[in-house]
């Protein structure tokens, strides 16, 4: 392990070394806390999608004041931008995750938004991400991050550095427009294989939808308005067996007579990057739809 000592430097006894190292670290933390208080970051900029999940959730659970709505979903819903919303709208859709994990976040945090948008998709087959939830709500880390914002994911020095780099060099071209047709086709075919057969018993589709339903009913009982929506995918995937089965399961558990469903007009005009995830422009339109829904007392 390297030593950075030079011959002219003042020496400290070995037993004091750990104390001085910890002291120096706390001093750096204090200075950095001042820095982040003066210059708040752009919360959407994570270093990777996993960190972006954490940033979204931390921004949500540590927010102050009233909130109008929250979006629960997967990487599909995560594309929906909320920065331009006219309302206090949070998106805790999780890349690699599912709306059920989002519902658990609401349950564990005790937060009850006025409106809860819920993505209904085949991704519900994924398990609730307990290790992610345990990380967010860890009994030591959770309060530390609450009281020391410099410890939050959005404040990581490398994320801040990335933001500076982006300001200098720009964000690059919009990758949505650059996906080669053969790659798009490959991705659609990959998804088509996944959607080609109904779920397996081990997937426990019914159990997962029931659990989600229990959480959503709890929220309704606490006064939240629950609105479900289905995001458009490539038309070749829409009516494959798995998509149909999951859609039916959702509609049976959450019938339109009892639950609000946001119907998406002109779904064919919404485009995807890979057959599953909306392009930026389409995601923007989707965000506007959700925004408008908030202005409507009941759909």
């Amino acid at each position, binding site marked *: 392990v390297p030593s950075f000592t*030079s011959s002219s430097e003042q020496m400290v006894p070995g037993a004091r070394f750990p104390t001085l190292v910890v002291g120096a670290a706390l001093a750096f933390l204090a200075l950095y806390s001042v820095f982040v208080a003066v210059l708040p970051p752009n919360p959407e900029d994570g270093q990777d999608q996993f960190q972006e999940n954490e940033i979204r959730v931390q921004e949500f659970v540590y927010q102050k004041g009233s909130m109008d709505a929250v979006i629960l979903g997967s990487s599909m819903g995560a594309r929906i931008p909320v920065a331009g919303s006219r309302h206090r709208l949070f998106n805790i859709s999780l890349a690699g995750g599912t709306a059920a994990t989002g519902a658990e976040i609401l349950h564990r945090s005790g937060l009850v938004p006025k409106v809860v948008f819920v993505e209904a998709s085949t991704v519900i087959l994924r398990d609730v991400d307990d290790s992610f939830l345990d990380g967010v709500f860890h009994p030591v880390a959770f309060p530390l991050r609450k009281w020391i914002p410099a410890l939050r994911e959005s404040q990581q020095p490398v994320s801040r550095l990335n933001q500076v780099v982006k300001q200098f060099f720009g964000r690059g071209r919009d990758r949505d427009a650059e996906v080669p047709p053969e790659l798009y086709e490959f991705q659609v075919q990959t998804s088509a294989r996944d959607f080609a057969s109904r779920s397996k018993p081990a997937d426990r589709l019914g159990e997962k939808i029931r659990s989600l339903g229990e959480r959503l009913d709890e929220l309704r009982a606490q006064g939240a308005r629950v609105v479900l929506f289905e995001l458009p995918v490539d038309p070749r995937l829409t009516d494959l067996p798995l998509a149909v089965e999951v859609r039916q399961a959702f509609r049976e558990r959450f019938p339109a007579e009892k639950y609000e469903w946001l119907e998406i007009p002109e779904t064919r005009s919404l485009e995807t990057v890979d057959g599953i995830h909306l392009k930026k422009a389409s995601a923007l339109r989707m965000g506007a739809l959700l925004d408008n829904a908030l202005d409507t007392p009941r759909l």
Partner: protein
Amino acid sequence: MLFNSWGFLLFASVLFVLYYLPLMRRIQVGLLTLASLFFYGYGEPKLVLLLIASILVNGLASYRIVNGEAARRRFWMAIGVAVNLGILVFFKYSGLLWRTFGGGGESELGRWITNIPLPIGISFFTFQGISLLVDIYRKPSLYPPRPVARHLLEISFFKAFFPQLVAGPIVKGRDFLPQIRTGARLHEIDWVPATKDLVMGFFLKMVVADHLKEQTFWLANPYFKAYSSFTLLAMVFGYSMQIFADFSGYSLIARGLAALFGYRLPQNFDFPYISQSFSEFWRRWHISLSTWLRDYLYIPLGGNQRGPFRTYMNLMIVMGLGGLWHGATWSYAIWGLWHGIALAVERFLTGGRSASQAEDKPFAWLNALFVFVYVSLGWILFKMPQFSDAWELFHAIATQTALEHNKKVILNLAVYSVPVMLYHFHYLYRSRTAAGHAEAPAGGSSGLLTCAVYGALLFLILVNSGGPGAFIYFQF
């Protein structure tokens, strides 16, 4: 229990306090042994039974070697080594052997064999047991006879000591047994190296490796098909940095923890990416494994003493088996042979004279670069143990030149590779100047600048850690 978890912090803190209580001084070895068994069984208690079985086998065999009739010492050593290897083969390689030689059909027996669980750390603690038996067989004075209860306790401690239990360094009997003692006092702790090892280890793991793993995640099939050749190459080299930071970070943490309890563990990494030859690389990478393979396999096979052909064969055998030690798929053996070929060709070209840092050769950096690139390409088999996936990745690197580069991924890979590069360059700089690469000035003191640098690293651990993940070598 992961070193980088809150649970471990609590475990280590409580144990540290208990260990140095005056009333515990006479039972420190027993306390550490019990705590180590708790550490190993945390989350999956039934695994402790296997560890205890392994301890009993090695404890009894070593006791017979030390105390038994001289004529039977070899027998007990052979039995002990065979049982260790049997445990390893049964738990780790049954599935591979069944798939390869048993037809791999869907019979009930086949399903049973392929579902045998892989206990964490089994490769490490079985190799450690073998070293114990061979060392005391070769040199009985290493561990003089003592009462059976004390013998078993000390062997239990040697095998189970938690900092090195699940991912090494693979401690040799000759290095560790003489250190075992009770009565350690707080003021005897060598705080400077212990703190440096812990801070640097956690920094390499939590800040560097855990962030790099999120960027190299996309090397998996089919995700890599969406990335450009250049981005994929950046990921491959990023994975080189990640695996170094992950494993050397673990080893440093293990050394630092052991030092807190008064024990020295061997150095496991010696700045391997500055190596100018493959033999030098293996003197610097996973040193405790490469020296184990040298001492207990290469030399007994004849080493380089039986002519060129046998030397090349021995290199290939040792590296092939060394590769297979990492995982129960043939791709790990191929990875070992990838290095075996490099070592054999290098030996053929240089006549066994390997380059060293002391020689200031022209184009030395080109040698180092070549070794690094070759080693990095080999890591693909680590990341993707399925041949077909690795082959498809190579194909993607060669053909996906038209896709747009992912600047965000490349930038993050570069940012988190910098600390690993600085770590090596700093060592290189100091080793080529008068300062040498001494870990700390004599007398257990250190400079204020060093305090500030390690303080900055600790600060980055607090504010810039990646998503928590298991250590890569835990799977072995």
